[in-house]
């Protein structure tokens, strides 16, 4: 947002950073040594726009991913965001990330990268809880999310995860941006 943008009242939408997602398999290895197990579930959350162009892109992405035997589902949450969830065999984190990237890049190539909100890769914590590694596209950063029940989250475990994956991925420094995603698929 420069001076001229203020004067002229135009705000350029931020670009989504897609490539950082490929660092997740490395973080998954670090997490596995600490007892976390990948569930093979992941999702891309985006704002589904109106109009025919958006629906076409979604269908194309779904066909693209379904060809390599992944399970694909699309669900809408109460905030009007759509979750494009992908399920792979539990060990295959890099395959999962490739699929998620395919969804992202389809949306981006169609000009909808502004609609991307976040992406999740789900793990099972040693105590049996679900933990999602959430990727914020616009920030290019990750943060962990561990729901306890419908409205509480396990902050202690989240901070612990931050310590584990800090060397592998860029963790969001601003804790106020660690948004809760209650009811995300796989959690």
């Amino acid at each position, binding site marked *: *947002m420069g001076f001229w*943008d*203020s*004067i*002229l*009242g*135009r*705000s*350029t*939408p*931020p*670009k989504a950073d897609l490539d950082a997602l490929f660092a997740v398999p490395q973080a998954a290895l670090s997490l596995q040594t600490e007892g976390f197990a990948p569930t093979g579930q992941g999702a891309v959350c985006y*704002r*589904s*726009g*109106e*109009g*025919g*162009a*958006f629906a*076409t892109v979604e269908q194309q992405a779904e066909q693209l991913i379904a060809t390599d035997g992944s399970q694909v589902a699309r669900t809408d949450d*109460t*905030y*009007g*965001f759509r979750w494009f969830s992908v399920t792979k065999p539990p060990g295959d984190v890099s395959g999962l990330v490739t699929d998620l990237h395919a969804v992202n890049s389809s949306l*981006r*190539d*169609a*000009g*909808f*990268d*502004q*609609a991307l*909100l*976040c992406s999740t890769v789900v793990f099972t914590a040693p105590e049996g809880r679900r933990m999602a590694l959430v990727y*914020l596209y*616009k*920030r290019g950063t990750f943060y962990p999310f561990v729901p306890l029940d419908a409205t509480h989250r396990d902050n202690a475990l989240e901070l612990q995860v931050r310590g584990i994956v800090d060397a592998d991925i860029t963790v969001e420094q601003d804790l*106020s*941006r660690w*948004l*809760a995603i209650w009811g995300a698929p796989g959690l």
Partner: protein
Amino acid sequence: MARTRFRGDSGLTLRMGGVSLGLGALYVAFGAFLIYASGSAVMGIVIVLAMSWGQWYFSDSLALKSMGAREVSPEQAPELHAMIDRLCALADMKKPRVAVSVTDMPNAFATGRSPNHSSVCVTTGIMQRLDADELEGVLAHELAHVANRDVTVMTVASSLGLLAGFITRWGMYLGGGRDRNGNGGPAFLVVFLVSMVVYFVSFLLTRSLSRYRELSADRSGAYLTGRPSKLSSALVKISGDMARIPNRDLREGQAISAFFFAPALNRESVGALFSTHPPLQQRLDQLARVSAELSEPL
């Protein structure tokens, strides 16, 4: 190759640039004129600029107080906070403070001197009337105002008009003092007249700038949510309601209209020049264009 569907409206940008340029030129010319015409205006300039600075600096708390709004925590309004959280994550901006005003009037506004010191306020009336998607469209519009720094721009733009208005109103007394000294009488009259003209012109320009910024915020907001139609339906709902609740006293309105040459004067176009918001139809047309752009194959 990253492509984006977001398209600026070059016509809108051009018009906004033109108006800003006009205001800037007026600013400089008026300032030069004042310095040339009289030294005593300096006090007025200082007072008015200090006033508009204060208004800008304390804009968020002032606006919230005047609307009787209070800040709400995520525990008090979880839905509203979650909505704004997500929109801020989409737009990658700092979350503003969230306030709610308990009034039946459906309205929402954003205020604050910078994106780091801003608040978004909605009334309980708007939350009752709009569904979640429509409210989100309205919030995206308000967040666009924050991102565009509209409070700062409008304060700077309108402070000149404030100064000119100040001189037209209080200049009589200042000028009267000078008159007793036997000089500056006619000079003061010139200052007074020029101030009046400047006040009028800057008023028109400020209003048109405000209308352009509204259109621009509509546009950014619609691209942010990807659902321009939801903002359209929110606008129709709110404007319908707002239009139905009159602000003017019934008797006053009738009495004055009687003196108007109603058929001779196109009151709608005159009204459009003076209003801070563009006409509903213009906003809906723009949103329809955004909607068409979004559904084109790229």
